[in-house]
């Protein structure tokens, strides 16, 4: 448990992704089974001990400390498990037992019931120091919240044992903690765990940005890139799952999709919600903003299902009725997909159309004319490309619509983290709420922390230090003299922002040293770009 506690603390204090990966990989390589498997499950929210809830911590502490002192402490620390780990009294007799291992703790926690947890949990806590108690309580209550996504954990696993992350993704699903078979495969060269009868996630094929290249449409097919979320719908032996791009199971958020697939298959497509006329076809897809109403919900009300009905616009088919189509060329998979769609529920599945352009110039013209708000751009796929995990050069390209641009005024800046920790690199910018020459004010419209070069960052950092009028902790308020040209993908109405607007993917496009602040854009200009 000490090693796990040290890992947990190191992860809490480490901001760089690479450093986190290194910490996790070292731990996974150096820790014996089954401890490392339990730890992995704990870090990716895979453990649940019904007898231990956060109220258990409160109840345990109420027997050991005055309730007012507990409340004062808890309010200061802001986390019950951490507060309890610090307040836990030293045992009257020093325990002869060494600190429990992770698997010993997991076994003990699994055996606890509501009847004996108040007696058994203290016995574990008494054998640990403050860091160990924190780790144990976090593991027991399943509330890690230290920013380890399952994708990060899988990448670390791949790094630890020098295997490909695509293979890890493929074999991970369906395995249960402590993932013995997975470690045997990666660390000891055993056969990969079988996954034939499970609704598993298969790693997505991804695209490179097109940049300035022009492609020969004799070799590449073009189709629309839709502005929803990329999903994979998997059905095996009657079990259906919907997976997000990162491989997270989101079936619960979109139950109607999971219920609608009646053929055993693995499908790749874009999840969208149906909307009113958006400049695209009638009854087609609504903008990303509408889809956002459905994201991140664990429980979905009937009203949600009715107001924002979801469907999947299919791009590709990976497996159908046990036959793995991934090695086939795109052209053949496309034919199989078109045949398959005819058998699917048309209310929940349709086909992403191929764009009938004969050459690149025509495609560019079609892309330029596209007015459907649910279109994010164009995809170009090599007609002979197999379906391969990850981003492979030369096979798939994405060609997004040109970004929208607006001139904003820099209002606040905040220091970044990691390599940028001494630089003011997070910028809040605003637009005028009227005529700046008749006393209009700036309203913040967005935040961005990328888009600039290292040289520009240095320049901005110096500018901000020399134009600070106020400080609020790590934030500086500037004298609002600098105009930034901000690029963004779209803008939506939002009740959460004072300006009433929320930008998607804002980034610093250009520093407009030449432009005086009062010539920056007004809120109206931004509002005019809203697409509902």
């Amino acid at each position: 448990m000490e090693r796990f506690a040290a890992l947990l603390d190191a992860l809490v204090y480490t901001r760089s992704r690479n450093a986190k990966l290194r910490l996790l990989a070292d731990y996974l390589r150096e820790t014996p089974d089954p401890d490392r498997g339990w730890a992995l499950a704990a870090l990716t929210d895979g453990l649940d001990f019904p007898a231990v809830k956060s109220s258990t911590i409160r109840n345990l502490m109420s027997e050991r400390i005055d309730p007012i002192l507990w409340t004062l402490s808890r309010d200061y620390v802001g986390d019950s498990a951490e507060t309890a780990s610090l307040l836990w009294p030293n045992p009257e007799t020093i325990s002869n037992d060494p600190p429990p291992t992770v698997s010993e703790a997991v076994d003990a926690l699994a055996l606890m019931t509501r009847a004996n947890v108040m007696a058994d949990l203290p016995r574990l806590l008494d054998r640990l120091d403050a860091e160990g108690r924190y780790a144990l309580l976090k593991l027991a209550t399943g509330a890690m919240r230290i920013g380890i996504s399952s994708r990060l954990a899988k990448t670390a696993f791949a790094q630890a044992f020098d295997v490909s992350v695509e293979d890890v993704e493929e074999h991970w699903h369906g395995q249960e903690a402590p993932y013995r078979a997975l470690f045997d495969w990666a660390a000891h060269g055993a056969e990969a765990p079988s996954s034939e009868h499970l609704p598993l996630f298969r790693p997505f094929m991804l695209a490179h940005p097109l940049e300035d290249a022009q492609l020969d449409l004799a070799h590449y097919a073009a189709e629309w890139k839709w502005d929803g979320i990329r999903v994979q719908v998997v059905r095996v032996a009657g079990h259906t799952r919907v997976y997000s791009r990162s491989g997270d199971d989101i079936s619960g958020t979109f139950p109607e999709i999971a219920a609608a697939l009646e053929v055993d298959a693995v499908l790749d497509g874009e999840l969208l919600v149906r909307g009113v006329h958006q400049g695209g076809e009638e009854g087609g897809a609504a903008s990303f903003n509408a889809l956002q109403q459905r994201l991140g919900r664990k429980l979905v009300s009937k009203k949600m299902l009715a107001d924002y009905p979801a469907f999947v616009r299919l791009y590709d088919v990976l497996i159908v009725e046990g036959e793995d189509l991934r090695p086939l060329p795109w052209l053949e998979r496309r034919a199989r997909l078109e045949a398959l769609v005819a058998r699917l529920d048309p209310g929940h599945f349709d086909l992403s159309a191929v764009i009938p352009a004969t050459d690149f110039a025509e495609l560019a013209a079609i892309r330029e004319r596209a007015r459907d708000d649910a279109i994010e751009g164009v995809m170009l796929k090599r007609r002979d490309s197999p379906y391969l995990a990850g981003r492979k050069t030369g096979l798939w390209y994405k060609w997004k619509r040109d970004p929208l641009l607006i001139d904003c005024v820099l209002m606040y800046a905040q220091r970044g983290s990691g390599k940028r920790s001494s630089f003011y690199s997070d910028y809040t910018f605003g637009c005028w709420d009227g005529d700046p020459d008749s006393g209009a004010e700036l309203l913040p419209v967005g935040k961005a922390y990328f888009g600039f070069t290292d040289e520009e960052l240095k320049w901005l950092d110096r500018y901000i230090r020399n134009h600070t009028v106020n400080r609020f902790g790590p934030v500086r308020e500037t004298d609002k003299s600098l105009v930034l040209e901000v690029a963004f993908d779209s803008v939506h109405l939002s009740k959460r922002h004072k300006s009433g607007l929320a930008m998607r993917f804002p980034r610093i496009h250009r520093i407009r040293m030449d432009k005086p602040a009062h010539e920056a854009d007004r809120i109206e200009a931004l509002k005019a770009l809203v697409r509902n």
Partner: protein
Amino acid sequence: MARDFSWIRPEPWGIHVIPADCWIDPSRPVDRALVTHGHADHARGGHGETVATPETLAIMKLRYATCEGAVPVAYHETLSLQGGVSATYIPAGHVLGSAQILLEHAGERIVVTGDFKRRADPTCPPFEVTPCDVLITEATFGLPVFRHPPVEHEIAKLLSALAANPDRCVLVGAYALGKAQRVIAELRRAGHVEPIYLHGAMERMCRLYEELGVDLGDLRLVSDAAKGALAGRVVLAPPSALNDRWSRRLPDPVTAMASGWMRVRQRARQRMVELPLVISDHADWDELTQTVIDVNPAETWITHGREEAMLRWCQLHQRRARALALVGYEDEDD
């Protein structure tokens, strides 16, 4: 009958000793100030007369260039003030020169702890328990979650981070007065003999400590260091310099901070600290409550810090207590 100890009166800007017409650690200029220790929030300049230990006066002189009206008083020496008040300075164990002040008047004894700690510190003499009627104590870490681990444990953490990162330096944020010298002295005690590099703002205070007899070993300035000389070294800087431009010159530093606040993970994260070192020059919760038990005063007055929890503890232990709400004492960086 409860006594009211009306000859001493806490005001928001300091503690007024009325018959002697002097103030303890006043935050505004007065004719006569009794100063417990050299931290800027307690030892302000501009008083007519400043009574303090010679070490504290030397620190004030360094900080304010002059220290007019300096009245040195040695530890355990009793000074007669006007109005039948006497003052005795007793080691507080906080930083070099730090003192508790025992005030006696009309058969009553009042102890003002100033800032203090109960643990061993190689840079200053230890706190002494002084029986009294009223204990006026600080409560900077007056919450039961603050239990500082042994300093050896934290120094070992620092040294293992240094060993694990031979290409980087460990940059430790520490108060320029007291904390920095204690960290250096503890590193030396743990056998670390390599040069330790300083931010320019720390140099003079370290030199003063050495003049006053605290050996700190091989100290050098970051600004004098050749490129590449800092890898694998300990570098000390004031907390404010940790994430500022100054630190850009260092070789990919592991950012550490030596402070009692580092006990709480979110506090460390807010400071963007990678290696929190729980090293404090203030008493932790156990030391604060143990001090009340050891001194066993009729009343406990709490000057600054998290006084609510201390008041609650006193109530639970049937001890008379009150909070004074003095202003201007800040220990965000301790």
